[in-house]
């Protein structure tokens, strides 16, 4: 009894410590990481397409993780999707590019019936058969998402009247003050436009050396080439560029205005190449239902509103404010040889001279 009395404070202290000891034991038991293996949706998207808020709301609604990979050129996109070890479920691609993916059997159908929000799209985007390249053998492969013409952005303080022609990119008055896009397909089309070939999308054999020369001339006239919209804005602002080929169209106009640039946006008389980007589902998509849900989500109110507000791009739900006369829009078409254009462009961009570019 005497001892019990003396022990009591110790026992009391022990009793108070007990929760801490228990907590420690519990903590060490729980230390092993518990990775909830949430399904992953692997998305390839252009800059600004998969807004973090949109991704987050999708992840929450579907209890999945979205892994977004941003691409900034058609050739990168092509290489990623056509690679043997490609691991993507859904991606955005322009309608003209779609056909080579279909041809290589890289896609599966994107069924509008499984995407309820397609019912809210403008009629001209709902009628998929009327848009070249989206439907193959009666199956739809692309769901229109956004579109823009690729016009010319110019600094109003340096260029008083809007440039009339695409040839302004070659104008020696703007040497070192031109920004162009680092992409072979479009650049060859631009060169073809200035060369007045029959179609900018289908170069004849004899056109290639001339087009290469044109692009080398363009290279010599530009300050530099950009890949991403933000990069183009940074270069434009930092180096006081006068003229820029707007590969991302209204998206860049929007970003430059937000950055405080005093710019104008011109559609050249040759016609502005115009892309319509569509969501597509890869053949290897692990969960086509989830991929359809993603597309549906991207046609929803949140994504559609953010596309306009944050990126300045048009959505397919409502008519765009910045729509230009249809007569001067040149909707992109499949090119004669995208890989050749890309290969030649890599050499041109790397600084090779014509002989080297055209070497086999």
């Amino acid at each position: 009894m005497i001892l019990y009395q003396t022990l009591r404070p110790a026992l009391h202290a022990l009793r108070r410590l007990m929760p801490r000891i228990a907590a420690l034991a519990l903590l060490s038991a729980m230390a092993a990481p518990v990775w909830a293996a949430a399904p992953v949706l692997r998305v390839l998207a252009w800059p600004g397409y998969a807004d973090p808020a949109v991704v987050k709301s999708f992840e929450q609604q579907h209890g999945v993780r979205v892994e977004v990979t941003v691409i900034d050129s058609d050739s990168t996109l092509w290489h990623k999707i056509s690679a043997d070890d490609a691991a993507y479920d859904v991606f955005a691609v322009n309608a003209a590019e779609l056909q080579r993916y279909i041809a290589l059997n890289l896609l599966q159908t994107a069924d509008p019936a499984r995407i309820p929000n397609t019912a809210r799209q403008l009629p001209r985007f709902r009628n998929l058969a009327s848009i070249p390249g989206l439907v193959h053998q009666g199956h739809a492969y692309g769901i229109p998402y956004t579109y823009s013409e690729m016009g010319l952005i110019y600094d109003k303080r340096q260029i008083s009247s809007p440039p009339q022609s695409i040839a302004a990119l070659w104008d020696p008055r703007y040497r070192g003050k031109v920004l162009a896009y680092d992409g072979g397909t479009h650049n060859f089309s631009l060169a073809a436009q200035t060369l007045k070939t029959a179609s900018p999308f289908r170069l004849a054999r004899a056109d290639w050396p001339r087009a290469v020369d044109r692009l080398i001339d363009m290279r010599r006239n530009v300050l530099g080439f950009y890949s991403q919209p933000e990069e183009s804005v940074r270069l434009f602002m930092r180096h006081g560029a006068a003229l820029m080929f707007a590969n991302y169209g209204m998206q860049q106009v929007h970003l430059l205005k937000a950055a405080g640039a005093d710019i104008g946006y011109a559609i050249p008389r040759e016609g502005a190449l115009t892309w319509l980007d569509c969501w597509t589902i890869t053949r290897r998509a692990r969960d086509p239902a989830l991929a359809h849900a993603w597309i549906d989500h991207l046609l929803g109110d949140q994504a559609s509103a953010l596309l306009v507000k944050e990126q300045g791009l048009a959505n397919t739900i409502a008519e765009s404010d910045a729509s230009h006369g249809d007569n001067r829009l040149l909707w992109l078409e499949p090119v004669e040889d995208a890989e050749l254009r890309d290969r030649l462009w890599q050499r041109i961009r790397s600084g090779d001279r014509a002989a080297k570019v055209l070497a086999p």
Partner: protein
Amino acid sequence: MRFSIVWRLGLPLALLGVLATSLTGYYAYNASRDLLVKAAEERLLTATRVLMRQVTVTLKNTAADVKMIAEHPQAANILNRSTPKFQSIAENNVGMLFERMLAAHPEYFQMRMIDASAHGIERIRVDRDSHGVLRIGNADLQEKGHYPYVFETLRLPRGTVYISHASINHEVGAHAGLEKPALQVAAPVYGNNDKVLGLIVVNVDLNRLFSQLAADLPPELGLYLSNGKGDFLIHPNPARAFAFDRGQSALVQEEFPAAAALLNGSDQRKEFVVTSGSGRSASALVAAFMHQSLPNLAAEDDFVLGLAQPLASVVAESDRLATATMRIVLGFSALSILLAALLALTMVRPLRQIMEAVSRFAADRSGGTLPLARKDEIGVLARSIAHMQTQIRNQLESLHAQQDELDHLASHDSLTGLPNRRLFLDRLDRALARARRNHTTLALLFIDLDNFKDINDTHGHAAGDAVLCAVAQRLQGLLRGADTVARLGGDEFVILVEGARDADAIDQLVHKVNETLAEPIRHEDLELPTSGSIGISRYPEDGKDANALLAVADQAMYRAKAGKR
């Protein structure tokens, strides 16, 4: 029950011992672990500082190399084509210099002289390829004017060195550097008239540079490098380096949230240490990070450099300690259990001794051995129990004495000291029983003093009492040990004579009684004459029981008294 005190004593003691050793062990282990982690953090931070210093020094050396060549008059001469006669010789010399420098610096991918005037055409270019160092021929020289490292450098004032963002080199024909992470270090070449003529540029192999500098670090250390935005440039997991080049994002501030303060500049701190994850998980790390800008250089970007060590290897030391501690804890726990048992038993043995002594005392008031010599509380307890036993014994003895006295008082006449009527009747009953059993006889002599009332009336009660006492004394003197004389009350006495005696012996006794009563009794100055009347009854002749015998003797006494009158 017998063991309860052993358990109640021993168990808490043993528990206390085990608990104390366990807690001491646990806290010692924890403290040592914290110390190890702290020491590792310090070590890593120091290593990071040293490495960062080496990186800075190396880049500055490269910058100095580039600047030295850019400022050499030969560079301006070549770009100006000011001495056409010696142009190719000069170009060859510089080309050889570039080759030597690439040979000397394995971390250089490429070294070039670029002409500002012809769309940034490369005038002299030396590449590294899989076989070694390679001078690039005229046909393969490229126009680089549209690359940022060219147009940015050409805008710099004389004597300034440009350091590009770290990027993957996608320039076709870059040989070993193609698709590899690189930094461009470039300096403008100025002519006499302050006109920029071109630039000298070195492509630094980022991975080589860092693996070279980190070669002396223990292999378990992970090296992290990020740019000023936090994009990983070097990561132990190569899939996380240059993720931005593949359209993905892998940021240092996502993997090490504490790095956010380092990057956004809100914090003045340039370095931090962090321990992430908990002890057992394989991903737990101790890491030190440091943010470094490159002052005096026209650098596009800053660096964040970090070194990380798996927590498991940091605390491996403490795991060894844990095993040792565990052994000590187990040893001491066993010891404390043993000691507790021993202590409990040593405590219990004297208690049990006391218990036995107390129970024996209760049984027969005998002592038993008490641990009296002990100096502790148990000794005190034993001594007080011994004291208590003595007290109890003394009190019992005095109680017995009082009891005896009370018994005596109850059975004896207080004046004469003779047995009273009660004791007499008791003895008579017993004597009768014996006589009946042994077929013996007995006799009663009933004696009454003849003139007692007169003595009382004449000389007072004191004289009467003196007479009664003297008579009692004289009667007692006449008797054998076995016979009883009692005072029945007033001046009545009775004598019980036991044993087989013939009539003569009784008569003789009567005669002696008469004789002794006849002697006068002295009281103060008086001679008081006394005499008594005696009645006799005999068993079995006169009666079978006490009352009958007494009644017969009483009547006989009255007859005798009447005869005298």
